[in-house]
């Protein structure tokens, strides 16, 4: 086994240990950051049962909603808009007219 290969093996061993070590450290830091820097929430639903009442289905729904909103936000980011436009303006003006027509039609004449 030549010297370089021996070095390479050493580097691999030490390197992977360091990467895992650094990542675990990062995990710890993140957990600490979130714990100590998150401002105490108003703590409204002090009733301990409520969190348990969240069924698995609800959790999945929440995950789905978050995923969709994240995906959408990310997609929007990719389009690299240079500034955010108020979304309402983009309701086409023609649509507005149709809405207005519907508005008038409410109730009998």
């Amino acid at each position: 086994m030549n010297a370089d290969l021996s070095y390479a093996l050493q580097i691999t061993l030490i390197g992977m240990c360091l990467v895992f070590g650094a990542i675990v450290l990062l995990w710890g830091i993140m957990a600490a950051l979130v714990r100590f820097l998150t401002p105490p929430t108003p703590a409204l639903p002090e009733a301990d049962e409520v969190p348990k009442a969240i069924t698995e289905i609800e959790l999945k729904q929440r995950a789905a909603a978050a995923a969709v909103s994240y995906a959408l936000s990310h997609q929007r980011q990719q389009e690299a808009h240079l500034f955010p436009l108020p979304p309402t303006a983009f309701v086409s003006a023609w649509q507005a007219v149709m809405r207005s027509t519907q508005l008038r039609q409410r109730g009998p004449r």
Partner: protein
Amino acid sequence: MNTQELVIELSKGISNLTIGHIIMLAVGGILIYLAVAKEYEPVLLLPIGFGCILANIPLTGMTEGQGLFAVLHSAGIGNELFPLLIFIGVGAMIDFSPLLSQPRMALLGAAGQFGIFATLILATVLGFPLNEAASIGVIGAIDGPTSIFVATKLAPNLLAPIAVAAYSYMSLIPIIQPPLMRLLTTREERRIRMVYAPTPISRRVLIAFPIIVTLIVGILVPDATPLISMLMLGNLLRDSGVVERLSKAAQNEIINIATLFLGLTIGSTMSAGSFLNVETVAILLLGLFAFVLDTVAGLIFGKILCVVSGRTINPLLGAAGISAFPMAGRLVARMALDEDFDNMVLMHAMGANTAGQLGSVMAGGVLLALVTGLLG
């Protein structure tokens, strides 16, 4: 000037064209084709392909002296300015809250770096000296700026094939990863659903995070500081919320200009003379090996975590830990959806993916430190 001289002068372009040039022109054309027709990372492959074409038209002088590519090379590649500017922009586009709200996802960002080291070993076995082997291994970081940064420091002579491999394979992620995912995970594993009950992340945490990471990584791995700090600077510009102007500049002007110039200049290093040789082929194959191994290691680690956690972690997430942000994360989410149209793991995948981004930079820095320490 007699007629003979004139003909020589006017045909100098054609008469200096070699078969090597023609092959590289075709390679440039293929890169552009992949960029345009397949939309594989076009913002990088298109400039790289165009730069490759220009580098292989004889006697343009663009890569020498005061030529455009020589100027751009010394302005932003030799000193690593362009990769660092790109990282400011990437940082300003990354949202770390999926990771911060599920910190254990960070673990998945470590295993996905194994390909770096395994490739280093294999390249050493194949006879590459240590500095070159390490530069080749860092293709396995699956992160363009990191690869370029490390290769420029350790083996600038191999910059062209390494950068090309890094960016080309990154753009081929949707082709490379899925078969491996299917091979290494069972259908049941891919269908594992995950609970999503994230801790809400306050603005204070989002602002402190990039500063703390810069400090800790900077002090522990000084060689990774330039990369990690620019990534975190971009993220701080974004999350601080008080420097909208600078955040926009990072996400638009700075990253766009740096990307265009970086791509062109990397492409311009692919001249037939230095690119067309057995070494390049070996590097390209080793790079592919690194990509595959990263994914495999990530998936196996994912399976381990799955078992350890009592099947509450979907092992596919391991494949998102390789970096290749944000493609790998999205791909994993899509794979899970394919198996079960109701299985939403995007937030977990993005957490693992951003962890992989951090892990890649740290692995690159560790490698740089170890090799520099050994050689220096």
